[in-house]
């Protein structure tokens, strides 16, 4: 079977004067045409490195990768003709030019005739709801509208494969929702294109993706539909525990037998820590509770349904935030 995106044992090593980092460690994935595929992992997991290799911006150290059946190293020009790339948090373009002028410029990189480009730009601006800002300088657009512009740029050339690297990073809830809805509609109804999306927002991956690969330290730990991934951990129980201290040391949790993993979110505003603990049985929970009470005051306890974050916790033993912080410290 021919996949739209396929990687085989992809390894990428970065060498600097002081260190060697293995950003990808034997990544093998196959993505079918028309699929919305999510790569979920903390900062530094290797998501962006994989996207950069697939979009011909980076060479793999070893392994092979294909997009639309074309080898990303040997047939990079053919790959570039069929892809679109949108990175969140980036605002490519020229601030002094208007939104419309920027889009026209980028359309020229794909050899579009000016009349086709203008028509397409008008359509995309209407679809993404920013026609009213067409003549406004890019530098004067809000983050949300800049990201709409960015997405419109990625779709200008009618790509058959769209790479989205954290497309809703830093956006408000409404704009993020609007863009997510638009991308799903684009992939499923309009263009029937394939989407590879990287994110560290669990809900985003859950809402949008047909399948999700969980990536950590350059390795794919699991790859299934969000539903199956969540079902796989249904044998475990998950509790949300809020404790009164922001500085509570809860590292002992990982040493309790029967604890699969946990995440912690500390809130400066409320001065509390929200823990999410995944464990195997009731007796484990009794131990967790008694150990926690020795260290801090428990404010509330509630049971929750499994999410993709819990899938990640079950695979890695820690939450996203802790893992990102750990990687930043390692680096």
């Amino acid at each position, binding site marked *: 079977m021919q996949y739209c995106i396929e990687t085989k044992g992809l390894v990428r090593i970065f060498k600097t004067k002081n260190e060697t980092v293995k950003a990808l460690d034997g990544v093998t994935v196959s993505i079918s045409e028309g699929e919305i595929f999510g790569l979920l992992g903390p900062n530094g997991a290797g998501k962006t490195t994989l996207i950069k290799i697939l979009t011909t911006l980076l060479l793999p150290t070893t392994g092979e990768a294909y997009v639309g059946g074309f080898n990303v190293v040997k047939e990079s020009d053919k790959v570039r003709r069929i892809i679109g790339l949108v990175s969140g948090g980036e605002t*490519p373009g020229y601030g002094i030019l208007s939104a419309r002028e920027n889009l026209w410029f980028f359309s*020229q990189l*794909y050899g579009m005739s000016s009349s086709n480009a203008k028509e397409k730009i008008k359509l995309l601006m209407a679809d993404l709801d920013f026609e009213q800002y067409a003549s406004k300088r890019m530098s004067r657009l809000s983050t949300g509208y800049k990201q709409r512009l960015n997405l419109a740029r990625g779709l200008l050339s009618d790509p058959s494969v769209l790479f989205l690297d954290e497309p809703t990073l830093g956006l408000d809830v409404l704009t993020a929702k609007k863009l997510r809805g638009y991308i799903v509609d684009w992939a499923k109804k309009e263009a029937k294109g394939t989407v590879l999306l990287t994110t560290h927002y669990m809900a985003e991956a859950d809402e949008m993706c047909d399948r999700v690969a969980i990536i950590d330290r350059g390795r794919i730990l699991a790859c299934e539909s969000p539903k199956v991934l969540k079902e796989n951990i249904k044998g475990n129980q998950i509790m949300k525990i809020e404790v009164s201290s922001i500085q509570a040391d809860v590292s002992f949790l990982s040493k309790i037998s029967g604890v699969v993993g946990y995440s912690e979110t500390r809130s400066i505003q409320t001065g509390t820590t929200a823990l999410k603990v995944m464990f195997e049985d009731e007796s484990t929970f009794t131990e967790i509770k008694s150990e926690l009470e020795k260290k801090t005051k428990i404010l509330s306890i509630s049971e929750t349904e499994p999410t993709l974050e819990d899938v990640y916790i079950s695979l890695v033993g820690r939450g996203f935030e802790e893992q990102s912080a750990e990687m930043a410290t390692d680096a």
Partner: protein
Amino acid sequence: MREQLIRDLRVAFARLWVRVKGGNREPEWLLAEMTIPILTLSAYIYLYKMLNAPAEFAGFVIVGGTMMAFWSNVLWNMSAQFYWEKETGNLEIYLAAPVSRMAILLGMALGGIVNTTLRAAAILVAGTVIFQVPLMIQEPLTAVLVFILTIIAVYALGMLFASLFMMYGREAWHTANLLQEPVYFLSGFYFPTRYLPFAVQLVASLVPLTFGLDGIRRVLILGEGLGDIWLNVAALIVFSAILLPLARFALNYMENLGKREGRLTLRWQ
């Protein structure tokens, strides 16, 4: 092949358009870019007048200042452009597009030439009117020829630098600083290079601008013709013939190196 050529021309035109549109959208920039060089020229002209230097020196300085506008443009807007594109995230978009990188550079160069020619022409006209410098043009076509050849050679050098800036970022930034004043000095912005010691003239001959500036001055100020400045013309052709393919090679080499090392799109490296 034809399709690729049309695509490349579209890209070059689009990048030219961005530069011209962006460069002239805020007219106060234009004013500053024309006024400041005229002030600098004035200082030298009054100095030469005070020293009772030959009248032609004023003309030399005005032509020098006019051409130096191009050198500044090459260094800061042409060579450094890919570096800025990298910082703003545009480079990633360029590299992921099915487009010739040389077409982008060509567009940048042409845009820079259009913008700078407007400014340089204003400097030349204002300078000759204010200081009443007599121009003795015998062969206008030769003047145009030397100007075009100089621009091609100097911007080809800029294209070559663009690859280095793209890869070496901040280090190359210092190189640009290092290149500005010495090139002003060597190529004869302040005075004709024939007054420099032979060894320095030899070093100056490695800079295409030296031949261009000397040729243009001789045609505009001294009234010389193609027969007198054929060596300058030949040198500029040789510079272009070497620098343009070298720029293309450097760009490909740097892009591949960048993709291997991850330096092109990962800003932390």
